[in-house]
C-alpha cells in the first residue's frame, strides 16, 4: 500500500454555523468533510446541546497542508471574534492522496 501524508483539520463550533461553514470550506478547496454533533465547554461557556441554539458540531476535513492553512486562516479571521470555535490540525496517513 502506498501511503501519503495529508492534514486532518478539526473545527469545533456552534451548530448554527453548519450551512455557512461547509460552503466556505468547500470554496477554500476541500474535497469533502465529515460532521458529528457534539457538546462541550470552552471560553464562551457551556454548550449543552439540549436545544437548537446550544449545540456544537465537530467538522473534520482531510486535505493538503496548504488548504488546511487557508481554511484555518479564513476561519480565524472571520469567526474567532464572534463565535464559539476552536480549530486544530495534525498529520495523517491516507491511501489515496489524489482524493484529498
Amino acid at each position, binding site marked *: 500500500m502506498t501511503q501519503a501524508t495529508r492534514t486532518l483539520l478539526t473545527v469545533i463550533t456552534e451548530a*448554527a454555523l453548519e450551512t455557512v461553514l461547509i460552503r466556505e470550506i468547500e470554496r477554500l478547496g476541500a474535497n469533502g468533510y465529515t460532521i458529528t454533533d457534539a457538546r462541550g465547554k470552552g471560553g464562551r*461557556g457551556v454548550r449543552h446541546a*439540549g*436545544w437548537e*441554539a446550544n449545540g456544537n458540531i465537530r467538522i473534520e476535513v482531510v486535505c493538503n497542508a496548504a488548504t488546511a492553512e487557508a481554511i484555518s486562516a479564513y476561519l480565524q479571521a472571520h469567526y474567532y*471574534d464572534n463565535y464559539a470555535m476552536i480549530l486544530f490540525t495534525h498529520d495523517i496517513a491516507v491511501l489515496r492522496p489524489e482524493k484529498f
Partner: protein
Amino acid sequence: MSMLDPIILFFLLGLISGLLRAELRLPAAIYEFVSILLLLAIGLKGGVELAKQPLTNLLPDMLAVIVMGVALALLAFPVLRLLGRFSRADAAAIAAHYGSVSVGTYAVAVAYLGSRQIAFEEHMPLLLVLLEVPAILVGIVLARGISRQTRWGDVAHEVFLGKSIVLLVGGLLIGWAAGPEGLIGIKPLFFDLFKGMLALFLLEMGLITATQVGSLRQYGLFIVVFGVAMPLLSSVIGTGLALALGLSIGGTAMLATLAASASYIAVPAVMRISVPEANPTLSLTASLGVTFPFNVIFGIPLYYAMAEWAHATWGGLTP
C-alpha cells in the same frame, strides 16, 4: 380553577429539576418533535379559521401588528442602549427579541384561555406569524445601518425560511386549503395531543431556563428588571392596540401576550448569523431566563385581567 394550570406545573417541575441538577433531560430529537407538532398545530388551527373570512377583512389587524412589532423593537433599543449601556449590536439584538414573539408563550396563552373557555379571534396565528418578522429586520438595521454590506438575500433566507415561520405558515396554508373536515383525520395527533405536548415542551423549557441562571447572575440586575418591565410595558401597548382594533376580551389578552412575549427561537438563530458580534447569551438570558417564565407564570393571568378591565372601562369606545 386554580391559578396553576398543570402545564405551568410541568414548567416548574423542569425548572426545579434543572436547578437541583437532576438527571433529567428531554432528548434534543424529542424537543424538536414536540415543537414541530406545536408549530404545525397552531398554524393548522389558524388556517381553518382563515378560510371562513376574506383576507381583506383582516388587513387592518395585519398592518397594525406589523407596526407594533417595529415599534416595540424601536422602543426597547434606546432603553437598552442608554439605561443598560449595552453595545449597539447587543442592544439591537435584544430589541429584536422583544419586538418579535414567542410561540411557546402564545401556546400557553391558548391553553390558559382554552381551559377558561374564553374565545378569541381565530386569526391570531396569522398575527403571530406576522409579528415574528418585522422586529428582526429592525434589529439588523439598528445594528448595521442600512449598509450595502448586509447580504439582504441571505438575511431574508434566514428570516423567512427558519423552522418556525415555515411550519406556522405551512400549517396555516394546509389548514386553509383542507378546511375543518379535511383535518378530521389528523386531529388526534395535532389537536387532541396539543396540551400534553405543550406540557412536555414546558418541562423542557423549565430545564433550559434553569441553565440560564448562571448567566443571570453574571449579567445582573438590569437584565432582570428589563426582562420584567419590558413585557409589562409591551402588554399595555398590545392591550391598547387591541382595543383600537376592536378585538374581543380574549383577543385583547392574546395580543397583549404576543406583545409581551420575547422570541427565543427564530430571532436568536437569525441574529447569530446576521449580527454575530452581539452576545447571544445576553438576549437569551433576558428572553428565556426572565421574560418567558415571568409571562408564563404571572404575565398571562395579568394580561387577561388587564383585558377584562380595559374592556369594562373603554370597551364601548371602539366599533
